[in-house]
């Protein structure tokens, strides 16, 4: 085996290269839209899908890895969106400060909320986080100096490094953000941090005996999830150029939970697939079907049915379907194949 071959093989197996290639593939979409091969509305739908994938990645870290539930996603995402608009348009501090504010402030608030709420578990944590989200939602409706209330906050495409952004450029920024989030999540879950989260989910008692400070790691997971939500909120604002309080309600939080469950707990690509199935499929496919396309609340019915089907038949999510497919393909290989596959997997961490 020549050196160049192994080097190339190692590069191909490196998951970070995979994420970068995935991002590069997505970057071709604005080009397609620009040349008229793809509808602009489709590009918008894909852009929002990727934004939701970022939020869902944070929730997967909580729900999938750490075993913590949060129904507060929408509130923190909305906070990120309004902060981005307020800092960019009202304060006139520009794109970078706006992004920084949308990252830092929700995370700090998230940590403070976490210190109080992470002492309760399961359904109580769900209620506590839901309460926070509803408080934020009411704030969005009332604090008119900040959000313009129910009339909605209007914004515009940012100026980045002296360049006036357009839809395609903001789409590119979303893709870059998603790829970075995927890489960061990968690093978190494949090292000591991820193992501590796993240990905590499996048994808090055993995790403590292994020296894991459970509250610290719960806060860590919660902080990363709010960081991603704040980022996604800012991207949402820059992409849509407006924000209304009604967007940031419980249904959004529940949809993000659906994305994680349907895509697959503890799966990075699965989360992106989940976001696509829950958000993009109703928009791009179902709404265009005759008769059923006109049913009100169709996306909710769709994701509801999908959750039931997935939990009953594919508890691993759509990623489980992928695994089954791979196993069926690998049974035809020689006996040593699974062992080699496992080795490759570890080598590729």
């Amino acid at each position, binding site marked *: 085996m020549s050196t160049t071959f192994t080097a190339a093989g190692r590069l191909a197996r490196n998951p970070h290269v995979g994420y970068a290639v995935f991002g590069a593939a997505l970057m071709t979409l604005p080009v397609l839209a620009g040349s008229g091969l793809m509808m602009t509305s489709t590009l918008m739908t894909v852009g929002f899908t990727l934004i939701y994938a970022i939020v869902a990645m944070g929730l997967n870290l909580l729900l999938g890895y750490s075993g913590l539930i949060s129904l507060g996603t929408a509130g923190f995402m909305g906070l990120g969106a309004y902060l981005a608009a307020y800092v960019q348009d009202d304060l006139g501090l520009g794109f970078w400060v706006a992004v920084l504010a949308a990252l830092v402030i929700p995370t700090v608030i998230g940590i403070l909320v976490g210190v109080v709420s992470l002492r309760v578990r399961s359904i109580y944590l769900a209620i506590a986080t839901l309460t926070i989200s509803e408080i934020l939602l009411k704030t969005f409706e009332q604090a008119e100096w900040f959000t313009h209330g129910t009339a909605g906050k209007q914004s515009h495409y940012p100026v980045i490094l002296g360049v006036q952004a357009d839809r395609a450029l903001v789409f590119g920024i979303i893709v870059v953000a998603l790829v970075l989030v995927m890489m*960061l999540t990968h*690093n*978190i879950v494949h*090292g*000591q*941090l991820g*193992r*501590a989260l*796993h*240990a905590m*989910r*499996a*048994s808090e*008692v*055993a*995790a*403590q*005996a*292994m*020296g*894991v*400070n*459970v509250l610290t790691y719960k806060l*860590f997971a919660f902080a990363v999830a709010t960081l991603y939500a704040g980022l996604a909120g800012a991207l949402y604002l820059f992409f849509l150029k407006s924000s209304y309080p009604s967007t940031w309600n419980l249904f959004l939080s529940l949809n993000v939970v659906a994305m994680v469950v349907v895509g697959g707990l*503890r799966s990075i690509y699965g989360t992106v697939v989940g976001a696509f199935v829950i958000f993009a499929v109703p928009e791009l496919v179902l709404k265009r079907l005759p008769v059923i396309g006109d049913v009100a609340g169709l996306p909710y019915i769709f994701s509801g049915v999908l959750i039931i089907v997935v939990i009953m038949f594919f508890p691993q999510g759509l990623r489980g379907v992928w695994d089954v497919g791979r196993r069926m393909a690998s049974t035809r290989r020689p006996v040593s194949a699974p*062992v080699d596959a*496992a*080795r490759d*997997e*570890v080598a590729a961490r």
Partner: protein
Amino acid sequence: MTDVLQVENLSISFGGLKALDDLSFTVSDHEIFGLIGPNGAGKTTVFNCVTQFYRPDTGTVWFAPGVDRLVRAGHAGTDRIDLVGQPVHRVIRYGLVRTFQNVEIIPELTVLDNVLIGGHVDFRSSMIAQMLRLPRARAEEAQYREKAREALRFLSIEHLADQLAGGQPYGVRKRLEMARTLMAEPRLIILDEPAAGLNESETEDLADTIRRIRDTFGCSVLLVEHDMGLVMDVCDQICAISFGKFLASGTPVEIQRDVRVHEAYLGERDDA
């Protein structure tokens, strides 16, 4: 300094029930120490009081892991510390590590990753360094992976390192839990019923493994076990308790001859 663990006058009550009543015992360096007693005697409660899962009402738990170890854990200028009141997650830093009666592993992780959790407190890289996968963090991860493989090799399950822990049979899971304790460079390993659910030949292997761990790592072992064959075979010293109270202590031979221990297990003799 020859005693790694000194439990003095330990008492704890749950409601009106006195689970432990003024219990004292001492585990010496390099000793395999057995704690025995009939069901409900309070053996696991002792473990939980030592490892701080329960806060005892009264009593002290002196732990002397060696000055170096204490300095590393941030307690310079002393040769022993009282564990009572320490947070549970700090106890392992002093070199006190335990296994669980009902084997606590993470089924979704590989065998190797499960073992690596035992080295959790030794990781020096910051969260940021790990999130960004800086060279320092990667080097540290590689170093501990190798250490974890050695621990698996020691327990003869290295060939299973990359398989999922959830798919492993019970015996392997038990070994996996023991390999995990070795990651912490233990001074004292607490084993909660390690022979439960093992067959005869597996139990014999276990006795051998416990001795090998003691000899290779120079640590002490505190063992709670119902399998009297194992206890009598492997232990240097034994302490028997009943209803939370001290009954007797001594070598296996002494314990086997002790009439109080017989009464506790079999009831009082009618003709006495």
